[in-house]
């Protein structure tokens, strides 16, 4: 007889590393899952501190869903202290959603370190910010959930179908809103937005802070501002964690307009789920682009 699942007959307990994955698991699992995210929405991935209650939840979880690559350096220690073989890579209880994603900025680490930029060794990790990537991510989530609760497979499939229909409608809406701004050049504060920019046709030409946490030098800022003026870059994309004084100085000197986009579900009260996150970002972006023209 197969061992009875530890979670009994109630909703399947799932733990995700980020709030974005939590939103996507909820979209597929509906009322048959109980999801908790370990990291708060705007946390610096290098400074996440997990609380005892979360360790307890992780210990009791049937499934751990993570962004993968090197996005969660803090998770290794957490998993070591939970010490549960179920969450070993490749186990049905551990899901790395990066596996099915076409990654950007994935030059080999050696080449990248030679260029002086070594943030993401395996490729940029912010892939959830391309809404098209919600398809492979939710497909992976569906597989993982259905393997753990086979009786609910039809329920999960129906949920995902409904979610993808909403996503398709939203994508049409967003693409339409962004259509007039194809190939507009923008500068970002951090390299958080390559997937988002790729999807909506923006060209990211430079980052204000190529290495997060290391303030840019005067010469770098000066040449950046010079180039922004010459190329007529009118938009600077920041996130809430960006250093406000650096952002406002670059904007003031280059004449670009700042728009603060939210990188994660829950990072703003309006960004309460995955689709609302993009609704908010597209709204802010189009308003800023219209004003900057």
């Amino acid at each position, binding site marked *: 007889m197969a061992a009875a699942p530890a979670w009994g007959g109630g909703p399947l307990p799932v733990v995700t590393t980020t709030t974005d994955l939590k939103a996507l698991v909820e979209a597929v699992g509906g009322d048959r899952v109980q999801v908790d995210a370990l990291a*708060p929405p*705007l946390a610096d991935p290098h400074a996440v501190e997990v609380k005892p209650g979360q360790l307890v939840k992780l210990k009791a979880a049937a499934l751990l869903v993570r962004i993968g690559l090197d996005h969660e350096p803090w998770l290794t220690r957490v998993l070591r202290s939970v010490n549960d073989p179920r969450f070993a890579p490749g186990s049905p209880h551990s899901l790395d959603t990066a596996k099915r994603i076409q990654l950007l900025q994935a030059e080999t680490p050696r*080449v990248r370190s030679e260029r002086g930029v070594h943030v993401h060794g395996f490729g940029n990790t912010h892939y959830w910010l391309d809404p098209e990537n919600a398809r492979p991510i939710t497909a992976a989530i569906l597989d993982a959930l259905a393997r753990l609760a086979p009786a609910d497979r039809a329920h999960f499939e129906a949920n995902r179908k409904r979610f993808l229909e909403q996503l398709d409608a939203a994508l049409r809406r967003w693409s339409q809103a962004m259509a007039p701004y194809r190939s507009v050049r923008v500068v970002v504060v951090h390299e958080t937005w390559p997937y988002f920019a790729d999807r909506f046709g923006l060209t990211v030409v430079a980052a204000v802070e190529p290495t997060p946490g290391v303030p*840019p030098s005067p010469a770098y800022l000066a040449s950046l501002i010079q180039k922004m003026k010459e190329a007529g870059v009118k938009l600077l994309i920041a996130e809430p964690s960006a250093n406000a004084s650096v952002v406002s100085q670059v904007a003031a000197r280059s004449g670009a307009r700042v728009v603060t986009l939210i990188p994660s579900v829950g990072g703003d009260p309006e960004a309460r789920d995955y689709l609302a996150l993009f609704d908010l970002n597209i709204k802010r972006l189009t308003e800023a682009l219209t004003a900057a023209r």
Partner: protein
Amino acid sequence: MGLALEFLWVPFLACLVLTGIHVYLGLHVLARGVIFVDLALAQVAALGITVAFLAGHSIQSDAAYWYALAFTVGGALLFSVSRMRRAPIPQEAIIGIVYAVSAAAAVLVVDRAPQGSEHIKQLLVGSILTVTPKEVGALAILYAVVGAIHWAVRRPVLQISFDPEAALREERWVRWWDFLFYASFGLVVTSSVRIAGVLLVFSYLIVPAAAGALLTSSVAGRLLLGWAFGFLVSVVGLTASYLWDLPTGAAVVTTFGASLGAVALGIGTRALVRQVRTRGVKALAGAGMVACLLVALAGGLLLVFPGMDHHWLNWIEEAAPTVELAFLTPRERDTYWESREAIGRGQAELQRLRGIQQEVQWGTRQMGQEQQERLRQFLASRGEISAGDRMVLRTLRGKARERQRYWLGIPLLAAGGLGALLLARARRRA
């Protein structure tokens, strides 16, 4: 680069303003032996802002500033009442406790409002490069007022810092003067940290005052020397940041460290020269022994662990490649020169092509989609080839080390050890 200079004007003025007040307060802090009081008060202010944030005020708002100030005054009160004549615990312990507890309390508070944690962290980081003229002006006015108040009450406040026993005997208002000192100090630190960050504020406070204390004992002398030191370091640090393209705040703090090291070295050298004059060459025996032991250690490490990093040898080989080439076979030498040449060529080409790639991105050069993709792929593979060439050089260096371990390691170990032994014996005889 003209624009970069333009960038550095306002930070330079900010540095001067910081020098003005912080050097003076630093004299007090150093004399009182409460070195980390600024970090503790900055942390208390950050806790105040965190609480303001939780109460629904934005971090940049006036309300948040008043919260920070109220918390700082509370901290000042605590520090002034915790000073006792025969204290069972040193005041530095209380400062440390206040620092740790307020930092931890801020974490607990911010845990309730996850969106704030990054902002709170930034309160303590600051960004001297992007300070605005308005901020510098406001700081200058505020610090002029604080400076004037300190000038007016300099007699009791200086006495409490520099001669606390006499002050406790003669002065009846010691706690009140202490409170005034800590409250004004907290106001200054809270305001400075917002624009310059804790590291820079700490350096401006302690390092010039320490340099002054190393060179003279009078308060006025220390103040003047400290101001000159702070001014000089600001100029050198900002220039370094401009010339070598370094993050500005970190460059200034490191310059502070290097300059204080230079002052200490100067004092040490002067003392040594004086000793040599009175006692002759024998005075150098101690330093010579240390040098010999270092040589022996370097040789010993090369002998036992040839594969570890021997930076001193790398530097020598960079300057004089013969030191490495002498340990390679003729064929290996050819490979060495070929790889170096290839790296040089590849580097130049990569730089040129990356420039083109940048121009295309910024729109100053036109290029078709397909050509852009080809350029990207070419750059990636060219980078790999250069990395390969570097690996060849590393392998050759490893081979050279295997031979150097005996031919260099043993002689260095022997010479250094023997030198140290002889010097030790000479010292004992003297």
